[in-house]
């Protein structure tokens, strides 16, 4: 801008005018190119979702004939899905596992993260390294002995193996919370301590309220983790269809019964809907969480 102000010849000189017009033209082309790439990518990303939702509104004959647009709209599919498969039961089971798992993870991960981030003690560094190492450990290595433990407790099939471990904290959540707790200035704790505040009170009354974004990220990740989990339920609940979760129900039901594709897509839509709503409500928390730790869930 300053160039324009100090050099009035810019407006009068025909050469400069031409250059300016060229620049605007170039910027316009650049914007058009940019948006066309962005729009193409958006269409590619949205197309599968569009097909799923549109199939979920079709009649059976349409859904099995490569149709793109429902004609007529069979909204009733979303009602029939509850009778075609025990959808309500699966949803309630999934909700139960996800809600209890989330509570367990938050309650059991905040205290370790607090003492790792904000107190100095012998062995703290080593403990943190061990926690990072457990994050890297492939689940397959511990899978069989853990299965044996649960089967000795006669917890298979039941929902306990999917809920109880959450109450023993998760390395990922400790890591995410620790990163956030570390960023809270030390002066806050020091001031509280000088005033005679106990560590317990300091954690609950000062640090937890300050760390709400990180705690919501942990809650969100663990809720989504349970909601989306498939391999856990596959090991522990398959033998009892009464306690199936949505993931198991949708994936295995087809093996036993024939399910029409339009019903299947209606069920899939209902399965992803809560997650997508949660995402829109908490996008900021979510993206910050991914960025903070470099991992999802």
């Amino acid at each position, binding site marked *: 801008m300053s160039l324009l102000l100090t050099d009035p010849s810019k407006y009068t000189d025909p050469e400069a005018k031409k250059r300016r017009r060229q620049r605007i033209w170039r910027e316009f082309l650049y914007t058009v190119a940019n948006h066309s790439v962005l729009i193409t990518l958006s269409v590619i990303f949205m197309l599968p979702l569009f097909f799923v939702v549109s199939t979920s509104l079709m009649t059976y004959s349409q859904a099995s004939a490569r149709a793109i647009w429902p004609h007529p709209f069979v909204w009733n599919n979303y009602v029939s899905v509850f009778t075609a498969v025990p959808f309500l039961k699966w949803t309630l089971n999934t909700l139960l596992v996800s809600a209890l798992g989330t509570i367990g993870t938050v309650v059991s991960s905040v205290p370790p993260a607090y003492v790792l981030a904000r107190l100095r003690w012998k062995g703290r560094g080593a403990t943190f390294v061990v926690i990072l190492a457990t994050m890297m450990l492939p689940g397959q*290595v511990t899978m069989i002995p853990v299965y044996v433990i649960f089967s000795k407790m006669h917890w298979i099939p039941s929902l306990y193996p999917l809920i109880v471990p959450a109450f023993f904290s998760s390395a990922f959540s400790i890591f995410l919370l620790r990163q956030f707790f570390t960023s809270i200035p030390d002066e806050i704790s020091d001031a509280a301590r000088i005033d005679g505040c106990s560590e317990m009170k300091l954690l609950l009354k000062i640090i937890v309220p300050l760390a709400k974004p990180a705690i919501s990220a942990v809650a969100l990740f663990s809720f989504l983790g349970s909601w989306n989990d498939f391999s856990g339920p596959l090991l522990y609940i398959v033998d009892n269809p009464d306690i199936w979760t949505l993931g198991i129900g949708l994936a295995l039901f087809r093996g036993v019964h024939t399910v029409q594709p339009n019903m299947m897509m209606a069920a899939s839509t209902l399965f992803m809907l809560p997650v997508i709503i949660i995402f829109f409500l908490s996008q900021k928390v979510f993206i910050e969480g991914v960025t903070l730790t470099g991992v999802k869930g």
Partner: protein
Amino acid sequence: MPLSKGNVLVPSRKRGASTSLNPRRKLKVPYLFIFLCMLPWILGFILFTAYPVAASFYESFTKFNLVESPKWIGLENFHRMFFDDPDFWKAIKNTLWISVISIPLRIAFATFTAWILTKPTRGMKFYRTLFFLPAMVPTVAATLSFTYIFNPAYGTINSILESIGIKNPPFWFMDPHWSKWGLILLGLWGIGDTMIIYLAGLLDVPKSLYEAASLEGANSWQEFRYVTMPLITPVIFFSAVTGIIGSFQYFTQAYVASGQVRDYSHSMYFYATHIYTEAFRAYEMGYASALAWVLLVITLLCTLVMLSTQKRWVHYPNGSLFK
């Protein structure tokens, strides 16, 4: 609360602590409080990590079917794996194939989508949301949807391909030669979370570097190649390592998809599928433990190889991996 007395942190008065600049030095470390806070993790670590790791190491040298107690057979499981189990090699082959193809594709696609999102455009937040959304879709729902959409008889993808002039579109999940491509596309569709990490990396690149490059007369490609690329190598490195580790644990998508299309030729039989099948279909718990330990060794080796080669191509602006 009898405990609280030991936990209260009071600066010692004798030394005149109130004038000190660093009150923490005078404070007693509340070990009991620390222990109680760490307790859930300590118990969880013993029950669900330390003991299981040791137990599966032991079981990998045994024959164990869950009913009888494990019987020591020495290295037999490992011998069987390498010399007497064609499924093992099939799984290894499939896993390596999908890693080699999908990891570079994922890195390229994540870099590209993130890079285009850094261009100052109107509606950038809207596009970012759309690109990210598929990553939120539950794996099972996404996989079921893809097996339907890519179904040659019902699905819409092939009718689109035919209408744009592709005569014989592949049968995707129904065809053992194309099923892995279906899985790769499924993975690329859910690139969102990887993309966000790249986006954060790209937005960290200082603006001044781009200004300097444009003063030097660099075009877009040169700018990308010589400014952006070197500065996001840590992110590329990170996603390459996690990608290799992840592909040896790749399970849900392959399991669900092969269940949908009855994958008789085992084209979607990966390493983690093999562990699951041996453990919970054949009840060969000892052999499956051995397979899991080989997985752990492969994971460690890959990480070590990557870490030892990183000096050659990864540029850390702050000079280290951990800030």
